[in-house]
């Protein structure tokens, strides 16, 4: 039997956009910028119970959440909703490969070396002022490099999902939420096995259509 065998080294290790980005960073480090890559992140208290994010990545997520979801009257604060923890929860549900890529992306974003490469800044993202962080985000958003626009979209999507997926944000958007009295959490779940199928909107009460007619040709 012919089975799929990936070529040695794996194809995506050469093609993955994030790895290309990191590889570029590595070259610069070899060229004398290594000290930038070693600059530490802002220190933040790491909450207990995180399942995916480590201290450094959690600090980056916190900073991103602050920029993507700034304080605004009427909007619950992302800190109060613990949006960074919600990001961590989402990461527990995604494919292993997505988790690896997002972890890489967070470090690429934070890395002072990367920031130097992209914008001649020598500070890790988490140690920048709010204004500088916003400038960096705007640069990623509109960059000529598709790598940066892609990275920006990935981070934006996960933060927005984590925040606006929380029902406590609904009043801020004047979203009424689902109408009450519709969802039935005790609705029957039918699995067959000889049990009678409960009547419902999906049950056809009339006589069923005739069997499928046979087409003109036999394979």
């Amino acid at each position: 039997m012919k089975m799929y065998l990936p070529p040695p080294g794996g194809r995506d290790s050469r093609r993955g956009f994030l790895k290309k980005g990191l590889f570029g960073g590595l070259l610069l480090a070899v060229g004398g910028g290594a000290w930038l890559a070693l600059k530490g992140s802002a220190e933040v208290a790491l909450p207990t119970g995180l399942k995916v994010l480590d201290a450094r990545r959690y600090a980056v997520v916190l900073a991103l959440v602050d920029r993507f979801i700034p304080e605004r009257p009427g909007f619950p604060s992302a800190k109060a909703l613990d949006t960074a923890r919600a990001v961590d929860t989402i990461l527990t549900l995604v494919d292993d490969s997505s988790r690896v890529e997002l972890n890489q992306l967070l470090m690429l974003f934070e890395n002072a070396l990367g920031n130097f490469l992209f914008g001649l800044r020598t500070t890790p993202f988490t140690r920048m002022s709010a204004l500088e962080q916003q400038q960096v985000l705007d640069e990623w958003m509109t960059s000529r490099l598709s790598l940066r626009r892609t990275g920006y979209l990935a981070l934006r999507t996960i933060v927005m999902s984590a925040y606006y997926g929380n029902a406590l944000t609904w009043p801020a958007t004047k979203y009424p939420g689902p109408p009450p009295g519709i969802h039935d959490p005790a609705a029957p779940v039918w699995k067959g096995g000889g049990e009678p199928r409960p009547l419902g909107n999906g049950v056809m009460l009339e006589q069923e259509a005739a069997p499928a007619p046979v087409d003109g040709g036999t394979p």
Partner: protein
Amino acid sequence: MSGRIFTGDEVTADTTLECDVCVVGSGSGGAWVAHELVKAGKRVVMLEEGGYHTRREFDMTEARAFPNLYQELGNRTTDDLSVSMLQGRSVGGSTTVNWCSSFRTPERILKIWRDVHGVDTLSTEVLAPHWDAVEKRLHIAEWPESAMNANNRALWDGLGKLGYERGLIRRNVNNCLNLGYCGMGCPVDAKQSMLVTVLPDAVEKGLTLYANASARTIEWSGRKVSSVRAEILDPVKNRPTGVALTVKPKLLVCSGGAINTPGLLLRSGLDADGRVGRRTWIHPVVVMMAQFDREIAAFSGAPQAVYSHHFIERGPGKVGFFLEVPPVHPMLASTVSTGTGARLQEVIEDLPKLQVMIAITVDGLLPEEEGATVALKDGAYSRYTLSYKFIDAQVEAFRVATLEMAKLQFAAGAKRVMSLHMDPVVLDSEAELSKLEAAEYGPLKHKIVTAHQMGGCPMGKDAAKSVVDPHLQFHGMDNLFVVDGSVLPTSLGVNPQETIFGIARWAAGHIARAA
């Protein structure tokens, strides 16, 4: 003889089953083919990677729906994130979460399949009796103009004012309460998805359905498939439990949909000399948002009631598009929109006054198009490498469609319209349309989304240019068929579910004879 639906928690030991037909996938193709096969007396086992989620769980929240009912939590994308894809992943497939729009395959498309791709088996006449049966079973009927919500009404009014062609959409619903939460699973089973209609009908007739069963490889030799090896997934953690389910069928039907069916075939070394996964079509969509002074409440009411095919054929060398509207709930609105911080908050803080239109471009009709390519991704379980090669004619269509949607929104009374460019283009009147003219278009310049995945295993007469023959039999294999959206040689120019229903019901006739 009654069949049974099993979920991952019920399969705790390695299991091997024998049957006449194994169907992989429970969506629009798999459900209909399995139903017709059990009706013909065949012993059918169905494998579905997603969970068995029912209205008991459909609480109408995005936070519950996306992780449970969509591929990759609703975040399936191309590798470069230039295209976001909504695709279902549960018993019933995308029919559990789609927006109910039902169209027969346009005659023009069937003619292209016949003339260009050698698909001489399908015509309106051949498919009509199947569509008749499908429409009767699924209560497919035109949604009345009087019931359309304000989001659709804006499109309807705009089309009327500009003198553009417009029509009312037919929907597969029964006793619909006009709620607007179709994308999160219908809480009252009004949507006539496969989950609540054809699949339970088939189970009553003997279908054995395994949910949380991820088909990993097809074992085959020469021209014959011998078995399918599946892994049981934990229904909560969505991770393999270590339990294997092996099915040994006389005949295998792959119905996992575009992307997942090519994925299974590629994992199994059935690549049709590199053609599996290529020529995947996605109806790339561009989106325009508008703010109105009045309430639109695009989250409430039947999501799609109006369409326009005014721009579906734009002349030689041009890419056509059709117009519809989407439902607008906060999480999807925030992730699909662009801009961040206060700019986004200003848009989203008055969600009830937000109106959204979509232009769905038709791909796969121009000879130079390659569409998307699906390939295996190292280290991934349910993700694939996905890339889409956009051509200039598509970029031109994005520009025209964006401008036309802005005109329609202003004609309907919008006070402001906003593109989904990475840095949104904002217009306060039609006099500012030149801003949209001047903007750049193309991947990663603005949001591109898709909810329709087609192709990747295209049917065709020439084995050197297609994956399955015009009867949907895999070229060179005696007992392997593909019955889902992946067999479409091009995209459709209409929402795809009814095309797949009809083709699946038609194919079941000759598959039953072959099994």
